[in-house]
């Protein structure tokens, strides 16, 4: 649970001048609970209680005969031997390994280009590239799904116009890449904004110093900008890791356009969803979700530790 706290707790200390901290300390009282209390009450209801209930569910099994029985870690053992679960996990891992670096690299390049002050129409670029973030995943997926279509989509148009026979982006070989494209489209702007916001607050004095030293643009990027926004890069990576492992909306919606290429266990999330809402296997579904939660936290933690170590 404390995985990301060091990273966020650190700036608290750094930001608050010592005087302010001590003054606050002198006022240590329960007054703050008037303000944090409402948040924590709802948080307990919609986060903590479901997590606890999930763990409870995962150690039981609902049997046809005998009702619900305590089975210890049996559900976990079953998941570890479940080839559908592994295939789903493998698919999102591949997705993570390819899509996240591509997306973050493009976002970073755009942010650096915006920050370099060498673009014409900078604010037009910034807002336009960010816009896809405001598009719901449902609309983004339907839109791209239609465009992918060989019937009235662009791929169909191109095939017709040039007499080509391009493979359908929704075929089973290409569908994961096509989903990757949709997710990349949705989140380049969001990540770009995280990077750009971090870049804009680098103290200008650093650039002046670099200029005196005769450093060029690329040198400034490598030596000042990238190290300075490492925190933002780590945060964006963690969000992307979590997002990849939770992949659900895009495949779930594409399924109606391409029912044969997306299985019910295409991603772990889709698998957990099908297990509980089509299969009524609530206990096993909760188990799959908990395992994914643990894996996600472990990888997010690893990303964070790695990012922080480089900094030191």
């Amino acid at each position, binding site marked *: 649970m404390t995985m*990301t*706290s060091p990273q966020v707790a650190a700036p608290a200390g750094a930001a608050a001048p010592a005087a302010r901290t001590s003054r606050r300390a002198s006022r240590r009282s329960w007054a703050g609970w008037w303000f944090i209390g409402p948040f924590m009450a709802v948080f307990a209801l*919609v986060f903590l209680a479901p997590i606890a209930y999930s763990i409870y569910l995962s150690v039981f099994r609902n049997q046809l005969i005998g009702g619900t029985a305590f089975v210890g870690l049996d559900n976990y053992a079953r998941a570890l031997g479940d080839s559908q679960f592994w295939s789903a996990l493998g698919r999102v891992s591949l997705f993570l390994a390819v899509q996240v670096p591509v997306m973050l690299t493009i976002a970073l390049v*755009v942010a650096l280009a915006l920050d370099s002050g*060498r673009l014409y129409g900078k604010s037009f670029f910034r807002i*336009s590239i960010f816009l896809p973030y405001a598009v719901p995943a449902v609309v983004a997926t339907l839109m791209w799904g*239609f465009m992918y279509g060989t019937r009235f989509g662009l791929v169909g148009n191109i095939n017709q116009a040039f007499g080509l026979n391009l493979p359908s982006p929704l075929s089973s070989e290409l569908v994961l890449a096509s989903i990757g494209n949709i997710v990349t489209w949705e989140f380049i702007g969001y990540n770009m904004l995280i990077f750009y916001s971090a870049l804009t607050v680098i103290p200008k*004095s650093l650039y002046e110093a670099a200029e005196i030293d005769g450093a060029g643009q690329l040198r400034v990027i490598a030596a000042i900008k990238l190290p300075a926004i490492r925190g933002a890069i780590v945060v964006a990576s963690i969000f992307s890791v979590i997002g990849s492992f939770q992949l659900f909306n895009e495949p779930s919606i594409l399924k109606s356009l391409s029912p044969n290429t997306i299985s019910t266990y295409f991603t772990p999330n889709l698998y957990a969803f099908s297990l509980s809402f089509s299969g009524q296997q609530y206990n096993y579904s909760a188990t799959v979700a908990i395992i994914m939660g643990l894996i996600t936290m472990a990888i997010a933690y690893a990303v964070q530790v790695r990012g922080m170590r480089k900094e030191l």
Partner: protein
Amino acid sequence: MSVQTAARPGSAGVGTSSPLKLRTPRLRSPRTTGTRRSRRSLVLTLLMGIVLLYSLAPLFWLLVNATKTQDGLLNSFGLWFDGDFALWDNIARTATYDGGIFLRWFANTVLYVVLGAGGATFLAVLGGYALAKFDFPGRKAVFAVVIGAVAIPGTALAVPTFLMFSQMGLTNTPWAVIIPSLISPFGLYLMWTFATEAIPTEIMESARIDGASEARTFFQVCLPLLTPGIVTVLLFTMVATWNNYFLPLIMLKNPDWYPLTLGLNAWNAQAGTAGGEAIFNLVITGSLLTILPLIAAFLLLQRYWQSGLSAGSVKE
């Protein structure tokens, strides 16, 4: 974090010659690098133009195809207009199809956004203020729990939340969508960093000395200072609620309570069912109508959310 790192440029080999001021002024406005390094580059602009095109082309496709009839969709080139311009007709049909259910979905979405995103922002502002400006027992624990919870996948919560809510009789009601939307850990985090920067403790002290209660200090003294941060959090929670798909998908069975996202998906899936009428032109027009309000909000409120984010990232 960025500020801390910037303090040690020596390790990177450049910038050692200058004494560095670490404490950046509060709420710096975005830096205008352009003034000094004003050599604009056509090549760079064109290269970025590719990303720009990639970002805007699908939206252009949506706009173009919202003007086509169902036949036109099948028979014309995707990235240009068809002969007959059917946008107004499509909008009218979208709004009236199936007894005007689209308008109902639109109203539902607005309801979820107003109560869900509005409530989430309110709770995040109060909570962020508490974390930034008060030392209370359990502060660190609150912090660790909330931040850790961000990493928990939605599905880990979805199934148990659904089962819990169904026992409480909340599923298939608007509350099942609104209540979970009230928590935005990202919003809390953003407000916490923003309030730390934006509210000088001295102001709070003097309000207290003047005899103001904690509530009065917050609402009359601190709240106005938090405006850019509040707008930012509101926009992001609005996007999250407006675009929410997974939560309503599991919670709602009755189409009368669907938000737009679920409704559009149902219309799209309708073509695949036996005897279902293919209404792709309405799906596309409905999609366009769904995204317009958010795009308008982002464009109109640019000034606020961009300064809100910059201030937030000081402490990232």
